[in-house]
Structure formats: structure tokens, C-alpha cells
């Protein structure tokens, strides 16, 4: 399981901001994704209307989730598959292991799955003598480097080409010394060569799911590399790892959401591969697994239903929020300290690991609102982060000094005449301190501000209310 470092968000962020390689990678992402999304959206006049449709599909599904889950499970079983209902991460890990054991699996290939990261499937399988092999290019390098993903669709976006080369040379010990890794293509060729035999040797293939379709019992994955298809068609056993909110009612609903997904994520009209899987291989089918399992995880999500956080379950994991987030843009994904970074993680992580551990995340936002403005299913992310701050405030989890200052300020702000006195005193005192200069380079109690920037001094002449009252008296004569 991804080691939780969210409580050390500030230290994580400081380290990230001091890492030139990471900053270079982040600059590359910032220069790429927002522009691509904008172009894709501009080319589809009905995109805004589609966002409403996407939101409504998800809202409807969540309002009737029990019914759709049962319908879905019945359809999976009709198609010869098995649904493993798992309330907790432990249940889901056990279910995956059990399936692999029964299949006598030695190696397991894996498509990209954030649920797998959430569960720590790789570590669990390794502990029990089964070798997992990540087949998504980004996940593959992260497995070599023993690093968690930093982004939900581009897990290794934080790495530069030199990092790839370094890891390949270190881990692929038989590589000739004169092998050149000059461009992206060289990296692809190396990974593809290594993976080909793994695909063929695997006993079980594990994939995630972008959508589960109640109408047909199908699971849907999208990839740009085709690794998902090889993962799920070549082995004898296919395991789908998915959480309950991936549910949509019909094939048509799934296609509506697919029209939003790639455009929001990478600015593509569609991902290169979109694959629908339904049950086991039937007589006469050219391909398909002998066994088809769905490990269906709740993992705390049903607790969100009926709360102010329910809207978060609409998320289709496109990553537009983090691609556009100015905080993610300087800290990168690892700073957030768990599986899901960026704005969507700042709402989801406290739900799944507890706000007492992930309390920094919903606070580390300027509420600039960019995330909400690009969310394909219109999740009000700043509002939901504010709800977490409310929970923290109620439970006295916010820092004591901060609460004290806020309380002191509020005491004055609630008493206009006292407030006038205090602000007059404050501007007067700051005015005296600032005499001869327009800005402070440092100021007692304002170290947070003045560490990296000056603090402008108040305009001389007193507060507005003071001056306005003076002016009114003068006019009245």
C-alpha cells in the first residue's frame, strides 16, 4: 500500500519545490495539458452541455447505486463472471490473492489501476510469492524505481528522460553499455521488449475499470498503449479491480462519459484504446478469458453517500483538476502523500484515510476555483474542501494558534466600534513603523508573509472609515 505521508505535506512540498528535476517535469506538464484540453473543448461545441449530462448521469446512478450494483452483478454472473463484494481494502486484497492462488499464478500482469495502488496489491502478491508486473509504461518504471505514482493518469509524469535511462541501466543489468536512450522512442522500445514475454507468460491479468455498466455487466478501460488489452486478453484469468462509484447505468451513458473523459484528461477526442469486457470467453469467441472476476471495492465510499461529500463520487478520474491546479503545479503529486493527489485527492483522501491524517490537503488550496471550472462532471471541489475545513474546525483539528488568531479577529469584527479602534491603532502603528518606506521587508508576527515577499504598508492618512467620517463631518459643516 502507498505509504501515507499526507501529515508531512508541508515538508513534502518544500522538498518538491527544491527538486529541479521535478520542477522541470511539472513545467512540461503545465505547458502541455491545459492547452490541449482547451483545444479539444473548443472543437466540440456541445462540451458544456455534455458536462451537465455527465453530472446528471452520475447523480442519478449514485441516487440509485444499490439497484445498479445488483443489476450489474446479475449481468456479470449471466456472462459467466464472478463478482467479489469487498467492503474493505483487506477484503479486496484477500480476494485478489485467492483468485491468483486458485489459478496457480506465478506471474500476474497488470494494467494501470489506482484501486490497485489504494489496496497495495503488488506488495500483497509479492509477500505471497506471486510476481506482479506493471505493463503501463509509467507504472512499469515506477515499479522498477519502487516509487508511487504522482498523477492519476500519468503516474510517472514527475520523471524526466534521464531518470528513465538511469533506471533501465540499473535494473536491466544485461543492457549493452553503448545502448542509446536519446528519445522517447528508445524508452518505449526497451520497455516493450521486456514486457512482451511477461504478457505471454502471465497466468492472471489484472486491470482497473473506468466504468462498470449495469445494463450489460461490462467493464471499460481506456489506454493509449494497448497494454490493458494484452493484460486482459492473453492470460487465462482476468481480474477487474474497481470501486463501486465506477457504475453507470447503460452503454450509452458510458459513451457520453467517454466523450468527456479523454478530452478532459489529455485533450484527445478519445484514448487510443477503449476496451469493453463482458464475462468469459464464449464458444466461438476468438479471444477472452476463461475466468472473469470483478473485485468490487467499497473501501469507505458508501459512507460518503448521503453526506456533503457524495458529489465527490461523480469523479471519473480524468486528472483535469490536478493538471490545472496551481498548487499541484508547484508541489507535484507526491507531496499530497497518498494515492490521489491534487484537488480531487484533497477531497477524497481525508474520506478514505481520515481527516486527522490528511487535514493539510483541503487546506492547501487557494480556492481559486480552476479545478471546478474544468471538472467534466462539475464537482464543486473548493466547496467540498471547505466542508473538510468545517469538519476540522468542529473537531478542533486546526492548529491552536491559528484558531486563537481567528477567534481574536472575530471578536473585534463582531463589534464595529471596537473594530474601528483596533484598525485605527493598527494602521497608526504600521504607519509609524513604515515611516520612510512603502513596504516592510520584515515585520513581527508576519514572518509567513515576509519570508519571501515584502508587505506593503497601509496608505498613510488613517483607515477608510476614519477618513470617510471626517469627510462627512466636513461636508455637513
Amino acid at each position: 500500500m502507498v505509504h501515507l505521508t499526507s501529515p508531512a505535506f508541508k515538508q513534502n512540498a518544500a522538498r518538491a519545490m527544491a527538486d529541479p528535476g521535478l520542477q522541470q517535469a511539472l513545467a512540461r506538464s503545465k505547458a502541455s495539458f491545459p492547452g490541449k484540453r482547451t483545444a479539444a473543448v473548443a472543437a466540440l461545441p456541445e462540451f458544456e452541455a455534455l458536462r451537465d449530462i455527465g453530472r446528471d448521469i452520475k447523480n442519478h446512478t449514485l441516487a440509485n447505486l444499490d439497484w445498479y450494483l445488483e443489476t450489474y452483478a446479475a449481468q456479470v454472473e449471466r456472462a459467466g463472471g464472478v463478482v467479489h463484494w469487498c467492503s474493505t481494502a483487506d477484503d479486496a486484497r484477500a480476494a485478489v490473492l485467492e483468485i491468483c492462488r486458485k489459478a496457480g499464478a506465478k506471474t500476474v500482469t497488470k494494467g494501470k489501476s489506482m484501486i490497485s495502488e489504494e489496496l497495495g496489491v503488488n506488495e500483497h502478491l509479492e509477500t505471497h510469492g506471486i510476481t506482479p508486473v506493471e505493463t503501463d509504461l509509467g507504472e512499469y518504471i515506477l515499479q522498477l524505481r519502487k516509487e508511487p505514482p504522482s498523477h492519476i493518469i500519468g503516474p510517472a509524469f514527475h520523471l524526466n528522460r534521464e531518470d528513465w535511462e538511469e533506471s533501465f541501466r540499473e535494473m536491466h543489468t544485461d543492457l549493452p553499455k553503448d545502448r542509446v536512450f536519446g528519445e522517447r522512442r528508445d524508452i518505449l522500445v526497451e520497455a516493450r521488449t521486456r514486457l512482451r514475454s511477461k504478457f505471454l507468460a502471465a497466468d492472471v491479468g489484472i486491470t482497473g475499470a473506468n466504468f462498470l455498466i449495469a445494463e450489460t455487466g461490462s467493464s471499460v478501460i481506456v489506454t493509449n498503449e494497448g497494454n490493458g488489452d494484452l493484460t486482459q486478453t492473453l492470460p487465462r484469468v482476468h481480474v477487474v479491480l474497481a470501486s463501486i462509484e465506477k457504475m453507470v447505468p447503460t452503454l450509452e451513458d458510458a459513451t457520453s462519459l467517454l466523450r468527456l473523459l479523454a478530452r478532459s484528461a489529455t485533450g484527445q477526442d478519445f484514448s487510443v484504446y477503449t476496451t469493453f469486457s463482458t464475462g468469459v470467453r464464449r464458444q466461438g469467441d476468438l479471444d477472452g478469458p476463461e475466468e472473469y472476476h470483478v473485485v468490487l471495492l467499497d473501501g469507505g465510499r458508501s459512507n460518503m453517500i448521503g453526506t456533503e461529500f457524495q458529489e465527490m463520487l461523480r469523479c471519473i478520474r480524468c486528472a483535469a483538476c490536478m493538471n490545472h491546479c496551481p498548487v499541484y503545479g508547484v508541489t507535484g503529486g507526491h507531496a499530497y502523500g497518498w494515492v490521489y493527489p491534487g484537488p480531487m485527492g484533497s477531497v477524497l483522501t481525508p474520506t478514505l484515510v481520515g481527516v486527522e491524517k490528511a487535514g493539510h490537503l483541503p487546506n492547501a488550496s487557494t480556492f481559486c476555483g480552476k479545478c471546478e471550472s474544468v471538472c467534466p462532471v462539475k464537482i464543486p471541489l473548493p466547496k467540498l474542501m471547505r466542508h473538510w475545513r468545517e469538519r476540522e474546525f468542529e473537531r478542533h483539528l486546526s492548529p491552536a494558534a491559528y484558531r486563537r488568531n481567528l477567534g481574536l479577529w472575530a471578536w473585534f469584527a463582531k463589534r464595529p466600534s471596537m473594530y474601528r479602534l483596533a484598525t485605527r491603532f493598527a494602521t497608526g502603528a504600521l504607519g509609524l513603523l513604515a515611516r520612510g518606506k512603502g513596504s516592510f521587508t520584515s515585520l513581527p508576527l508576519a514572518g509567513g508573509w515576509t519570508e519571501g515577499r515584502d508587505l506593503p504598508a497601509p496608505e498613510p492618512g488613517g483607515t477608510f472609515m476614519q477618513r470617510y467620517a471626517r469627510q462627512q463631518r466636513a461636508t455637513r459643516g
Partner: protein
Amino acid sequence: MPKPRPRVALFVTCLVDLYRPSVGFAAIKLLEAAGCQVEVPEMQTCCGQPAYNSGDRATARDLARPVIDAFLPYDYTVVPSGSCGGMISHHYPGLFDDQDPYYRGRAEALAAKTHELISFLTDVMGMAAVKAHYDGIVTYHDSCSGLRELGIKAQPRKLLAGVEGVAMREMAEAETCCGFGGTFCVKYPEISTRMVGDKVKDIQATGADTLLAGDLGCLLNMAGKLHREGVPVRVRHVAEVLAGMTGDVAPIGEQRG
């Protein structure tokens, strides 16, 4: 159609009150030029946003109630800030959700007639041009709440285009947050400073000599960073330029001289 000489209550905002009274006086001048009768309700302190965004809804409600009582009697409430304006027009009603239907109704009524200053001048009062002169190459930062909650983008540019002597030069990423974020800037100072550092680079790259915006929090943040980096850009609230009051007060963070 707006009534002849609508009665407008000016919500000054705590930052303008404390830091930049000229913005308040510029607002009054512009509103009067647009044909409004302006009053400044005396009891105002702060809209409550710091408490609201810190998760302290009870304090936010306590601060919102007297604002609602004092400002509701006027035809309009006008705020020289997208952030505080958005607090009243977009967030006040939600503060009283189910617990207090009386104030919920009053908050909705106030929200419906509360506007940010510049968009009020153009969109409600139909102001097409101002009489002002300012010599400068101007770049404009779109503050987040104004831009995304209230749709303020074209309005200040439209009025600035009519100011004699102004040449506009847009910066890259004008819509990206400057890193102020209310209490964020002191809770996460390193991240905030990095964000405003990036903003300063974008400002510098335009070659503009003046930075304008419609929110004092962002302006203090950007002025502070420009000053620290020694970048000679004059920083002002857009209302000061539109009201032709730049001769009355030095740019933000600078000494008159």
C-alpha cells in the same frame, strides 16, 4: 432598467479600509459618475470570508447577519473586490441553509442585488467609458473569485480601453491564481511565495510598467513580491486608474515622492 439615481451601499471591505482607503474613494467617485447615490453603512467590518474559509461557519454567520441587516435596505450593494463581492452574492445564502429560513431569505435577497464594482458599472449601470488619463503600459491580473464566480473578464478591460494614455499588454496566464488565497498565504507561505514568484515572471515578461487588478488581497501579494524582487512595476487597484485618482496616492507598497 435601473431606477434613476439608485441608492447604492458601498461595502468597503476590511482590506481597503485598513490598507488602501483610496480604492473606497475611487469607488464612490466612479459610482457617482455612473449616476448613483452612494452611502457607506457605518457598522461594516468584514464580510466574514476568513472565518468561512477556515471552516468556522458560526462566526461567518455572526458576521453575515449584521451585513445583511445593514445593506438590505439599499437598491444595490457594491463591493470593490470580486472575492468579498462573491462572498455576499454567492456564499451568504448557503450559510443559513436549513437552520435559519428567515436569514436565508434575506441573504438571497441581498445576494441578488450585490455586485462587484467594475461589473456593476458596466453591466448594471451601462457605463461605457470613464473620463480619466493614465500614462502607462498596463497588464491586468484576473483575480480568481471575480473571474470564476462572477464572470469578470471583459468589463475592466473595456473601461481601461477608454482611459487616455493606457496601453494594454496581456500577460501569459492572466487567469492563474497569484497564490494569495486569503489565509492560504500565511498557512502555506512557501507554496504561496512560489506561486506569486511565477506570477511576477509573467508580469515582467510583458514589459508593462503597471499592474492592475480588482482585488486588494491579490494586489498586496503581487506588489509585495514585485518589490522584494526589485521589479519596477507600479501596482494599483483598477478603480484608482478608472477614477483618475492616481495622482492622490502612491502605488501600492511605494512611498509617495
